[in-house]
Every structure is written in C-alpha cells, then in structure tokens.
C-alpha cells in the first residue's frame, strides 16, 4: 500500500511526547522549588509506554493489511473479503490512534493555556 497513515500517526505520538518533555524543561525554571519539573509519576500508569504498545499493535494490523493487499495484487488466490476485512481493521485502528493522540494533545494544550 502506497499510503501508510501509521508513520504519520507514529510521528504524531512521538511529537506529543517530545513536546511534553520540552514542556517540563520550560516549566521548571518558572517555579523554583515546585514539583512540576519532577520525574513522571513513579509506579503510576506509564502513558508513553501504553501509547507505544498501542502503536505497535496498530503497526501489526497495518502489516497484515498490506501483506494481504500485496498478495491480492500479485495474483495470489486470496479472497477479496479477507483483504477488505484486514484493511478495514487497520483503518479503524489508525482512526482510533489518531483520535486518542488528538485527545492527548488537546489535554496538553488545555493545561499549557492555564494561567499561573
């Protein structure tokens, strides 16, 4: 498949992470003695890890879809509905990922706009 929306989504997620890292650096000098610049919640839910795992799963559905599409266009006897099912599943996975990423970024921006 020529279009790979995943790389776009992946870059998106990675960018979001990078921004939050940068935000910590920017925020901490403003509040000397504050806990804002501290490490990410120890023992808590690791959002970056969860996002990475989810992206790996989305990547997997993409690979299945592109393998099946490739098999079909190269003339293998693979049922059309199987290809379409794989492509639909991959499409849904990407849409879900972008929706979650957009939500995460919106939340970050919401906090960024907060007046201190």
């Amino acid at each position, binding site marked *: 498949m020529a279009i790979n929306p995943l790389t776009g989504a992946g870059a998106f997620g990675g960018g979001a992470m990078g921004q939050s890292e940068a935000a910590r650096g920017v925020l901490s000098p403003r509040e000397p003695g504050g806990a804002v610049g501290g490490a990410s919640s120890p023992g808590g839910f690791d959002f970056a890890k969860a996002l990475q795992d989810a992206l790996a799963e989305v990547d997997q559905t993409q690979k299945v879809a592109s393998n099946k599409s490739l098999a079909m266009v190269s003339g293998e006897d693979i049922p059309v509905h199987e290809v379409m*099912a794989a492509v639909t599943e991959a499409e849904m*996975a990407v849409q879900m990922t972008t*929706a979650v990423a957009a939500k995460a970024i919106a939340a970050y921006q919401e906090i960024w706009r907060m007046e201190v």
Partner: protein
Amino acid sequence: MIKGFGILSSGMSAQRERLDLVGSNLANANTTRTQEGGPYRRRVAIFEALGDDQNPSGVAVSEVRLDQNPGPVVYDPSHPDADADGMVHMPNVNVVEEMVDMMTASRSFEANSQAFQTLRDMVSQSINLGR
C-alpha cells in the same frame, strides 16, 4: 485488535468455501467418471465453531463430506460407462437442491457482511464520541 472483524471474516470465508463446493457439484452434475471410480459424489461442507464457549473466534470448514446417497441409475446402453445391463450410474447431485444451497450460502455471506459493516459503523461512532 477488534475481534469481531476476524469472526465475521471467517464466516464469509466459510460461506465462500461452501459456494466453491456448490460450484463443484453443479459443474459435475453429469460426471460419470472420477479418479476413485464410479460417478461423481456430491460434496457437502461441514462447519466447525472455532474457539471455546467463552471466547468464540469464528467458524471454519472442518471437513468436506461426500454425500453417500445413491444417485439415479438410467438406462443408456450407448454410454461408454454403462454396465453390462446398459445401466449408467449418475452423480447424486440434484441441481435444484444445489440452487437452494447456493442461495443459502449467498444469504449467509450477506448476513456476515452486513454485520461486518454494522460493526465498522459502531466502531466509527465510538471513535467519533471523542471528537
């Protein structure tokens, strides 16, 4: 990621395989010679549920059975496969029955594909909840 897509896809695959057998039966409705000897025997797909009670994961064609019902025997001494009495053993394929099977397979496929689209819409709507 979303199990329903796999399940419904397996349903469509199973119906497709069934239609392949209907095709084979129709194509051989008048076949009197086979590798095993004797007339062609009608093929029937036997479906098997995949996964366990709590985790259904679809359906598969577990085996292809040969219909053991006797086929019609017609008198045609000029036929090369006629026996000493001039009787020819014909396949036990009933074309009308195959048409019914074909429609059932087609409708079952349609049902699976409709459910697939519904699931797709449901997932889409769920994603749109957050927008």
